[in-house]
């Protein structure tokens, strides 16, 4: 008996050290964590995915603030300068005569009195040797930026006029961080505007093909039978086609020949809309298969039977009870789809069948650059690097989401 008692005494675990938990902490522990919070916490563990997410946010901010950046940098994205094509990065270029004269003409029109004063001053100080006083400002505008600024300093005019003149003189020279392209346009600005187009197309295509896939997958999975087999045969057939050849044939068609399209699409941004439409046409299939699969299993669950018994309509069951359960895997698919769409957009634009110039996109910038690889290799490298960065970020985020949502997959 004694031995047994001894044993039982040994078996009693030592008293746990008194841990001091405040009431708040206890409440925190007892509260059920929401699904989004769990997913977020899991997602944060995937370092590459977090970096990817920040990269995407950065590019989205750059894309949204493109006009603002244009103002801050003082470089016009559409200004062409045929005398300074294919300039190396970090080069400073003196602006063309037309740009200078336009600036001066605008100034004279806006402040005729100030301009007249400056003109007489310029002649008096003998900075310019114009025969007519009206030409004085124009002659001044021929100077290099530094000389023009120096002249402004010695003029005997008030500060407002001086700062105005300095503003004009600033336009005499533009600084190009990434050099200029085949028409003398600033590469950085075009890349920034290209970010808008390329990422816009990618996100738009991924979202709308998710919508199409959701619709078709839901109908096929929910109703089953003939509709299911018909829709799935079409999906399989489209899925088995080689993507690029099909996209090229479809992208090459002339929409003007279709009468009904002509009335829908107005001019401007036509090539963008057409591209989004074409890419959507061939990217909804994986999503519809995924949605169909989930809905097939959901259909057998008790809560669906319950809502059916309560008399819910098919529409309510599908949208209110089934879609929330499909969202998580769909999110992964959409994220991966953005990267893929950006790649396809770039490929088509690279072949000259996607976004049409002068609208810049990363793909058609590459298309333009490949003609002069020998002279300006830099032009070809930059857009591709951006495509790589953005696509890899989306792929990593998709991977991270996958891990966070579905812990059953093999974790790294």
């Amino acid at each position: 008996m004694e031995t047994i008692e001894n044993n039982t005494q040994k078996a009693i675990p030592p008293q746990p050290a008194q841990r001091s938990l405040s009431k708040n902490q206890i409440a925190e522990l007892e509260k059920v964590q929401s699904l989004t919070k769990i997913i977020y916490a899991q997602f944060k563990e995937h370092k590459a995915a977090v970096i990817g997410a920040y990269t995407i946010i950065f590019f989205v901010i750059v894309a949204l603030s493109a006009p603002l950046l244009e103002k801050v940098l003082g470089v016009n994205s559409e200004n062409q300068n045929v005398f300074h094509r294919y300039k190396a990065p970090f080069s400073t270029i003196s602006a063309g005569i037309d740009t200078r004269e336009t600036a001066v003409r605008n100034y004279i029109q806006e402040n005729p009195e100030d301009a007249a004063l400056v003109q007489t001053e310029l002649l008096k100080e003998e900075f310019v040797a114009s025969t007519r006083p009206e030409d004085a400002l124009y002659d001044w505008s021929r100077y290099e930026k530094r000389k023009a600024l120096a002249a402004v300093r010695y003029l005997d005019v008030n500060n407002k006029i001086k700062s105005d003149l300095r503003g004009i003189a600033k336009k005499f020279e533009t600084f190009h961080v990434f050099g200029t392209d085949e028409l003398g346009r600033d590469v950085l600005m075009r890349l920034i505007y290209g970010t808008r187009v390329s990422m816009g197309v990618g996100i738009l295509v991924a979202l709308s093909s998710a919508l199409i896939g959701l619709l078709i997958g839901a109908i096929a999975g929910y109703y089953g039978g003939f509709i299911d087999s018909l829709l799935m045969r079409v999906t399989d057939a489209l899925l088995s086609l080689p993507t690029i050849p099909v996209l090229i044939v479809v992208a090459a068609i002339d929409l003007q020949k279709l009468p009904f399209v002509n009335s829908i699409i107005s001019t401007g941004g036509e090539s963008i809309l057409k591209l989004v439409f074409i890419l959507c046409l061939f990217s909804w299939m994986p999503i519809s298969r995924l949605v169909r699969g989930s809905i097939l299993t959901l259909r057998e669950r008790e809560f669906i039977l319950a809502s059916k018994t309560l008399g819910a309509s098919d529409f309510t069951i599908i949208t209110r009870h089934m879609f929330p359960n499909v969202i998580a895997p769909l999110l992964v698919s959409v994220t991966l789809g953005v990267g893929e769409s950006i790649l396809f957009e770039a490929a088509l634009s690279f072949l000259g069948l996607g976004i049409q110039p002068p609208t810049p996109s990363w793909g058609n910038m590459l298309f333009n650059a490949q003609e002069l690889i020998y002279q300006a290799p830099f032009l070809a490298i930059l857009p591709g690097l951006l495509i790589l960065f953005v696509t890899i970020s989306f792929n990593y985020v998709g991977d991270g989401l996958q891990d966070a949502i579905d812990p059953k997959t093999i974790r790294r």
Partner: protein
Amino acid sequence: MLNFILRRIVQTLLVILILSYVCFGLMNLMPGDPVEMMISSNPKITAADVERLRSFYGLDQPMYKRYLSWAGDIVQGELGYSRTYRIPVTEMMGPALGHTFILSVASLVFSLIIAIPLGILCALKPNSKVDYVVNLFSFAGISVPSFWLGIVLIIIFAVNFQILPAGGYQTTGMAYETYWAEFLDKGKYLILPILSLSIQSIGRFSRFTRSSMLEAMRNDFIRTARAKGLTAQVVIWKHGFRNALIPLVTIVALSVSSIFSGALITESLFAYPGVGRLLYTSIMGNDFNVAMISFMISVTMVLLMNLAADLLYGVIDPRVSYK
């Protein structure tokens, strides 16, 4: 089993048939009109002549009638003439198909040789530094635009170092004395296209090999094999890899489609005379006949590969049941 094979074959044929009709319709929507292109160099032509030309070539018929006569010609082996080169399409297709075949197969073999060892290496040491680096590279491989990689390769190897040609498929005006010389010369032109075409499949294959190998190595029979004292080599290759191979074969067979479709861009970039480039240039040059035939050939080849993949799956894994 036989039922399944027959159904798959019928399905594939049906898709090809429908696609040929759709493709025929799409060609009608391409910019440019065949008769207008024909008469563009002849200013003396009248409206009546145009009408006569249209009815002569059957262009005034409804689309389905034109399609039927075109399809009839195809079945009889009449592929028509190329508008740009003025030679029969059959003469262009043969060599182009051969070139594309060489490029695709070489790229597939190359990517398998690189990807499978990498994937296995990662699966054997998960979470190691090697695993991390390979994972990064496979992600980059999946995300990199292959045409851009091609441009970068051209810049490095053809422009800067000038050791490899930037495009083409053989040195012009070469008369080969031996087969070896021919192989060496043509191989030199293949290196860059193969590299740029393989990068994506290398990424995909190595990730897939890793995950299926990890899955295989977690099986109980691996522990048994280790417990009975088999060497690590035998356990990895005979017990682990053989089981990881099953899903891998399907993925490889299915990715022939994406290699074939990627070959179009690679061929256009490197001016390599394959089917993909033929399709691209003929569409750009309004050579409808060539475009249609090369499109149908590309699609048919990919569909046949998919069919083969489906059938192969059953041979490799007897557990798969056909319904």
